[in-house]
């Protein structure tokens, strides 16, 4: 196996987490969600060492912390791919072929909604409605919004995103 395929455990710099926690007006559960949002803003997900700091600092148990995290699909506990595909799965987009897009992505990148591909390029997520049904089917890839995607040509669209 090539060296590049090996998972390199990166040391996570916890200083930003500590800074976020120190800046909280009060170390209490009521500031947990904003704190998690800021931490995810730094690391793009919620790394476990950072969560241990949160547990100790805010004084909540692991079960309680991950209970909150798992309630919000927006919070990720694993590092996502470079681009998060937010594919609309609302009624209009579904009728216009969102499912076909999911299947094509699965064929090509071997990922289902909620998963990240091996090269860590894409994480696929589905949304209940992105609020732009006129442009169905639609998706947000990274920061870009794409409307009226041709399901058959969706892979070509994705191919323009590189690591």
């Amino acid at each position, binding site marked *: 196996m090539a060296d590049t395929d090996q998972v390199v455990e990166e040391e996570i710099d916890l200083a930003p987490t500590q800074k976020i926690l120190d800046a909280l007006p009060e170390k209490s559960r009521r500031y947990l969600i904003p704190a998690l949002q800021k931490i995810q803003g730094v690391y793009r997900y919620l790394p476990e060492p950072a969560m241990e700091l949160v547990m100790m600092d805010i004084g*909540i*148990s*692991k*079960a*309680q912390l*991950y209970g909150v995290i798992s*309630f919000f699909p927006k919070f990720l506990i694993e590092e996502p791919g470079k681009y998060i595909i937010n594919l609309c799965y609302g009624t209009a987009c579904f009728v216009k072929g969102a499912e076909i897009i999911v299947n094509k992505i699965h064929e090509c990148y071997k990922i289902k909604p909620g998963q990240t591909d091996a090269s860590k390029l894409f994480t696929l997520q589905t949304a209940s409605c992105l609020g732009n049904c006129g442009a169905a089917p639609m998706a947000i890839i990274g920061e870009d919004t794409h409307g009226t995607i041709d399901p058959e040509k969706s892979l070509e669209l994705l191919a323009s995103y590189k690591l």
Partner: protein
Amino acid sequence: MSVTVRETINFTIDGKPATAPEGTIILEVAQKYGFEVTNLCYNKKLKPFAACRTCMVEVRHNGKKELVYSCTHPVAEGMEVIIHTEETDRYNSANIEMLLVEHPLDCPICDKSGVCPLQDNTELLELQKPRFEIQRRNEPSIKTNPLIEFYLNRCIVCGLCVRACDEIQGVQALDFHQRGMKASIGTANDEPLDCEFCGQCITVCPTGALMDMSSDARGLAALFKNTNTTCSYCSWGCTVQLETKKNKLVRITADETPGVGINEGNLCAKGRFGHGIVHNDERIQSPLINQGGTFQEIGWDEAIEMIAERAKTTINRNGAESLAGLASEKLTNEENYLFQKLFRNNYGSNQINNLQNLQAPYVNDFMLNCFENGIESKPVTELDQADVVLIFNSDLPSEYPVGGNSIRKGAIFTGTRVIFANPRNMRFDHESRIDIRLIYNQDADFMLANRLCRILIDENLVDTAKVQEQIPNFNDLVASLAPYTADATKKATGLTNEQLKRTATQLAEKADRALIIGNDVLNTGKGKETLNALLNLAILLNAGGEGSVSIYPPREHCNSQGVNDMGATPQYLPGYRPVNDAFEHENLADELFENCANGKIKFLHIAGEDPMTSYKSRSIVEQALDTVPFLVVQDIYMSETARKANLILPTATFAEKEGTVTNMTRHVQKVVPAIPVQGKAKSDLEIFHNLADALGSPFKSKSSSDVLEEIRQTIPAYKDVDPARHEQWKPSGVTAKPAFQICAFEELKASKRDFSMKLLTNNHMFHIGSYTHFSKALTDIGPDCFAEINPKDAKKSELVNGDTLLVESSQANLKVQMKINPAVPAGMVYIPKNWPEVPVNALRNGEDGTVHVKISKSE
């Protein structure tokens, strides 16, 4: 009872007039008045939650009709409550019907079948014909921890387990995960459950989603025979429900019925899962005689005859005083009473003692001093009503776990303020607004307690004029407190005067106060001084403050209190009557083991104790047992003590015997047999009766109840106590002798240079005494002994988690696995005392007080 008084509210339920204190919720009152209200997620011990939405009632108030959830809605003046209207039934039914869409109706194999609120409510609302299409979940059972099985297909997400884990146990090992249709209860990321294994979640689970895996029995709880008895482990005295089937104990559950037990249906890991000691092949199967080092089975008659003969010849040759007995903190009152009677009446020897009285003979005096000062202490059933609780050097979750449950409940419902004083920064989570943590230096207990007394006086927090009037030696106390200055206390305890002032202020406020003292106090070498200082504190608060003070002596085992009440001590006859002239002989039992080792005691009878592992110093016990010419040990298991005996008698476990035990707060409670005595074993009571018969002077009593009757005649305090009602005995005939207990000041001994660390040892969270190791469930969750040290000490000695530690004292050394725990202060080594392979008591060299040790990495 809390000092805050709530107003009484008048209202009606289904037209009948009712009253309740302000703030009471409708459901609680309705149940109290005997009305059936459907509900699935309500539990009186927990905060209102309203998850299941099946307890809707109609209320009319100020001319307005409202539909409210009775588990969260408080009663109001003039309110009319109507239960079961056509409308509320419709709403409540719909919610239960939707639960039945998913709930697997596998009732014949469900643990809760017959005691299931879902069944009851389905029946109550007549929902036998489902309206909706059935859609069962089919998730596999989660068995990733040794004791609690999660079968979430049955889960109705009522949240009772999550709330019990948080509010009752303060552990928060469970929470809700995901949301919507996927919402479920569990641990973070489905990791294996790692908690205190109290099993409170199993008790409160209404549907059998959480199950006790320590038992093979499955299904139909209602078909098992239930016997309520008292737990045989710690001294808190919880009522446990033994479930039996065909004369076999299948599991232990908690009975949450109000008024049953002092524990409101709360249990700990030991009480709930420690039943493996009952049906166990390792129990001693028959009387055994030691023939040159090997044990041979002999018959009961022969064994009893041999003891009687030996007793008689020893009395003839060496006098009655050369016969000594060690009574047990684990036997019933009746058994201990007969044991001391056997020695005093039949043998004519006063040489009888028990392990607690041997190690800390001042504990009984402390209790009697409390009585003489008019501090009777409230029943522990009122602990959850206390306004302030001082937890003094007790790691509650390990020592008195269920005591912790009551205090947490008080913090939620009564606003109990919690003061936690301990040398270790142990976890004790609760919802109290006031939580003072005093983490002080090991062995400085007496400094802390005395400083609190001095602050109360110096700062005029109590009415000193009133105290002076009531207690003659007040000025002596003031004088004796002179050395406890802020500086000296800070130096010894590490606590600032501000912290202590805050504590004293909390204690001095008008309040019902409870002081819970841990057994660790007795091992500091200044146990007597500390208890006396706490007593003085209690007297000051009682005489010079408003409200009440409850203080109880620390006790370790299920009948540590009762064994002393029954007079199994050389100082006191039953009922703490001083030993009179009838025994004008040398008191050998005070130094029982020393007097065995020096040959003065020729005959030792040990009933249900294992001093080799339980006594503070192992070497003297070993010498004693090796020297004493005749040793009888009666016990359930082959203990290290039993191995040294000439004769071993197999006895019955708590599940097989009848009697009473008295807990640390003096509640006398019943021990009820759930199964017959196993194999050839006999109850200790029967053995003592047989012995008296063989000695030719039989006891008049025939049964346990006869003995209890005799105890009632002998001990006035026991006369009117009804064990069936979990009543506390009250001191009777005590002459009031108000006096502070003055002790001379003595500075803390510094650590010796070679042995710079201090040892702390006590019972592990999952083990107590010498039996729990025979319970598979408890060894599954607490398999190995770990010494714990502070990260700083670990760094200094280059130790990491999992290393083997060499612990050396001037007497002995031992090897033990270690882990780093920041809760342990620097300079301390904590080793639980419950592993036979880690004999911590061997490290003591005969000196009292804390053992000094040094540590290093073992190669």
